[in-house]
């Protein structure tokens, strides 16, 4: 029963809020190294911004079709995370030892810092996609019920 909201105010406010919240999510994600925030919070905010798009603009609008496609990307975030860990393994260290990411010219601390950024992106991607997927799972049978009645 997820469909476009018909109030003009909601729609225009949504159009303003959606990009803003996506921007905020990215800020939270990348600011996580310097202040409160990080992968978890950023991921959830990103997921909910897509959700807002679906609720306000309806499932047929372009950003929502994007959301539906994202939903099939279950596991991309984990792949990034495990991939970074795997690169560390190949680099000769133990699993997730970012100082073994082979980047010439960087010292250990910078590599670790980079590793933290990359894995944060992985966490955020995974949480955003899964939050969407769980909400669609719970909402989908909603729509199915409506079609029965």
């Amino acid at each position, binding site marked *: 029963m997820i469909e476009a909201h018909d109030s003009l105010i909601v729609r225009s406010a949504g159009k303003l809020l959606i990009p803003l919240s996506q921007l905020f999510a990215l800020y*939270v994600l990348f600011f*996580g*190294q*310097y*202040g*409160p*925030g*990080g*992968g*978890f*919070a950023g991921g*959830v*905010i990103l*997921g*909910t911004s897509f*959700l807002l798009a679906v609720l306000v603009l309806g499932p047929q609008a372009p950003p929502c079709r994007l959301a539906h496609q994202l939903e099939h990307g*279950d*596991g991309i*975030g*984990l792949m990034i*995370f*495990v991939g970074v*860990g795997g690169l560390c393994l190949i680099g000769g260290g133990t*699993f*997730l030892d*970012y100082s073994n990411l082979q980047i010439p010219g960087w010292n*250990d*601390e*910078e590599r*670790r*810092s980079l*590793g*933290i950024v990359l*894995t*944060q992106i*992985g*966490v955020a991607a*995974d*949480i955003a*996609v*899964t*939050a969407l*997927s*769980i*909400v669609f*799972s*719970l*909402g*989908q*049978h*909603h729509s*199915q*019920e409506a079609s029965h009645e």
Partner: protein
Amino acid sequence: MMDWFEIALVILLITTAVGVIRVKTLISAVLILACYSFLMAVVWAQLGAVDVAFVEAVVGAGLSTVLFLLTLFRARAKDTQLRRTPTPLVALLGLPLLGFVLLYAIAPLYPDGQDGQPLRPASTHVADAYLQESYKATKTPNVVTAVLMDYRAFDTLIETGVIFTAGIACALLLRSHSE
């Protein structure tokens, strides 16, 4: 040294929790639960755990409420009304016992007057090493992020795996008959 702000917050927190228990419709219970989560986030911010407060505000008060409401909106109105059921005797006997065990166990965690720290080992042994060394090793000023994504990165990986598992499990439970 009492912190009246913290005491007030804690009283509010307990009041909302009791409200969640007493209220008669599920939708109100869920909405009060969102308030509870938000107050919990404030308490955590007050205790110095800003990262945790942020995530609780987003995940606890935000996402959890959305999930609860999505489930409830689907149910017919009469199913979301609660009936009073008699309290089983086991619960009445078990609760004081459990409360006693908890009070017994938290006794050593109170500040001991001397240096005003609750039980020293928790805040010295490994934690000090994190505070002193993490910036040198990772160039990350937020120590929580440094520990979360580097020192204990494997826990974080598995916990991302928990989220992934949950997504898959929901898909398995709810999407079988459609598509």
